């Protein structure tokens, strides 16, 4: 299968399989499964091991480990009595910075962290020590933002994919997470360990059945329900499956293998492998909109009032060439203002509505009750041209680079002459090709809309 991710692994990050596997037969089976999937990962052809750890929380956006050799003797804050975990890892710093850049291009807050003594989390230490004990593969570790929800997490996954494609690298991705994460609240004899409740166990087995069938995107679609049923509610949603599916391409075509499922102090611990394949069970089934760019709560640092410094504008064009801008009227559907593909820039249909207010220069063609109104098509045409201009400029282009226009009029007989005159005032010297057609209606009460193709 083509694509930048050659294998996905979902595995627990609790330290028992690393530190004291002999204390419980199930912990030993997790350890054994880790070692089997370790051999698969090492033979996968991956250039880098990309770890998303639910045990590394962040608040300020998304952090990416970028120290070339993180080194420490780590002790888990809960299970400190099990022993210490010395580590020295090798990080693909170029890839780490690539993820940061790609995340920022998609509207996310992201930063690289490269500090001596930075506390790598237990889950990342456990996973990398067991999967990559000789540091054969360079790694990259991502934090899990405590506030991020579905859109932000999916965009982060896509940014990681962007970075892989931009650098021509193959990755094995590792999600460090429990399934159900309810621990016992009293100390137990390791020999007595079991999943905290039958309900948690049933949900875990349902997830593993899906993953065994290679249905990663279906599990991602279930994330909100999984969170409600078997996860701590303090953290915003069960987000690792969103990230994993996004970075792996958002589909259900994998050879899934559940190598182990056991209890660790009451939680559901597993080791699962997903290898992309041409086959698989079904296709993706989105219950919610897909998302390319994050536009969440940016700008909260700006103070209110007319003298306030405006928040820094988000980049209008992301790594996928998608252009969105606040300077043009808001789209009325799930589409961007424009998208660059190769050497051409394609604009979505542009009407005369005004950015921010949606007012229509020259007036709407009908009133709120649907009764026809008189309107000024010349004013509407000029407003369309103005909107085309700001979208092109947001994308780094300009009106003089337009190569083709398709114009839609709702009343050719009434409006063509005035439309044609105003159009010519701007476009005559540009020499763009043009087609003008009459349509029965447009989505809002406007008389004219342009579809434009330009050079970037």
């Amino acid at each position: 299968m083509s694509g930048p991710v050659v294998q996905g692994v979902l595995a627990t990050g609790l330290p028992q399989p690393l530190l004291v596997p002999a204390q419980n037969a199930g912990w030993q089976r997790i350890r054994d499964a880790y070692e089997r999937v370790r051999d698969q990962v090492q033979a996968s052809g991956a250039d880098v091991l990309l770890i998303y750890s639910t045990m590394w929380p962040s608040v300020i956006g998304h952090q990416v480990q970028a120290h070339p050799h993180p080194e420490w003797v780590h002790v888990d804050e809960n299970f400190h009595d099990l022993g210490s975990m010395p580590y020295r890892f090798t990080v693909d710093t170029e890839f780490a910075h690539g993820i940061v850049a790609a995340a920022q291009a998609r509207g996310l807050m992201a930063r690289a962290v490269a500090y001596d003594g930075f506390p790598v989390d237990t889950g990342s230490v456990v996973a990398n020590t067991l999967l990559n004990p000789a540091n054969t593969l360079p790694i990259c570790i991502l934090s899990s933002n405590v506030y991020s929800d579905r859109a932000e997490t999916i965009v982060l996954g896509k940014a990681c994919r962007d970075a892989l494609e931009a650098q021509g690298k193959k990755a094995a991705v590792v999600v460090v997470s429990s399934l159900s994460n309810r621990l016992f609240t009293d100390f137990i004899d390791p020999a007595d360990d079991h999943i905290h409740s039958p309900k948690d166990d049933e949900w875990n087995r349902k997830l593993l059945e899906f993953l065994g069938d290679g249905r990663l995107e279906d599990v991602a679609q279930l994330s909100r329900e999984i969170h409600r049923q078997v996860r701590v509610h303090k953290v915003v949603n069960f987000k690792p499956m969103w990230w994993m599916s996004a970075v792996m391409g958002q589909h259900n075509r994998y050879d899934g293998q559940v190598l182990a499922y056991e209890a660790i102090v009451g939680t559901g611990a597993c080791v699962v492998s997903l290898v992309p394949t041409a086959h698989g069970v079904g296709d993706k089934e989105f219950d919610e909109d897909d998302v390319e760019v994050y536009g969440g709560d940016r700008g909260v640092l700006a103070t209110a009032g007319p003298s306030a410094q405006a928040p820094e504008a988000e980049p209008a064009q992301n790594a996928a060439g998608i252009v969105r801008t606040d300077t043009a009227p808001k789209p009325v559907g799930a589409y961007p203002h424009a998208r660059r593909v190769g050497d051409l820039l394609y604009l979505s249909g542009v009407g005369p509505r005004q950015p921010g207010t949606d007012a229509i220069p020259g007036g709407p063609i009908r009133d709120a009750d649907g009764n026809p109104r008189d309107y000024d098509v010349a004013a509407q045409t000029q407003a369309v041209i103005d909107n085309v201009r700001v979208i092109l400029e947001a994308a780094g282009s300009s009106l003089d680079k337009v190569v083709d226009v398709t114009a839609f009029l709702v009343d050719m007989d009434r409006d063509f002459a005035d439309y044609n005159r105003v159009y010519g005032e701007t476009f005559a010297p540009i020499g763009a090709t043009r087609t003008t057609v009459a349509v029965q209606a447009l989505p809002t009460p406007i008389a004219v809309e342009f579809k434009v193709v330009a050079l970037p």
Partner: protein
Amino acid sequence: MSTGRIVAGALAPHPPHLIYAENPPQNEPTAECGWENLRWGYERLRRDLPEHDVIIVLSPHWQTYVGTHFLGVPHFKSKSVDPVFPNLFRYSYELDVDVALARAIHDTAAAEGLVVKMMENPDFRVDYGTLISCHMANPAWDKPIVSISSNRATAWYSVEVMREQSLALGRATRAAVEASGKRAVLLSSNSLSHRHFTTESDVPEDMSREHITHHGQYLWDMKLIQMMKDGRCQELVDVMPEFIEQAVSEADAGSLTWLMSALGFPDYPAEVYAYGTVIGTGNVVAGWFPQEVAP
């Protein structure tokens, strides 16, 4: 041995920004200013603290999910890097632990029915909440500390369950201090409202960008501060579950409830030294001084 007592309790929030702005020699990053109101509040708290033998701190950033844990190693020397704000806080620390008192609280709490454990791994890294609150209360580090973890069982049950456990832990702390013959200062290491910004200014100490995340949080913070000033601390504990839910409060760590319980639910006014926001969260520095030792 004379009877020990709690000579002061303080709400002592731990934003790493305060140490970053203060520029102590232990911290690597340097700032040009910032969050002065809170830092000046800490200065006034330090002036008012009575003579004491030990500082006992409960920190939200030592999160334990199986029971309440206590540092049980007599001396630590290491470096702490904040995993959330590593750009601000990279702090070399060296501190002493009053292991005997820690074990006494541990044993008393166990007798109260709490699940407890001593932390005896010498490689353990002390959490940054403990470090920051203790530094701001005692930058000389010339007193031993007792560090208590935050039991996060509330994550699976409710804030009411957490409250009952925190109340029991407070009673155990008070009893153990009294039996020890020592004079103790207690620190509740938490902010009040706790919804952060998820972005950071290019210059973190740019105070023109600092404000509360949400007006509703500010209202809740002022409501609790007024209770502190009025000596209505039983009522404060009573509203804690609602406050935690509505203000996303870091008091969900149990630390403030623990402090109120250990102090016997003060009906005398708290000294409120400062209120300020840090990256959108609401923070107050306040002190309670039992009558017999009031400054």
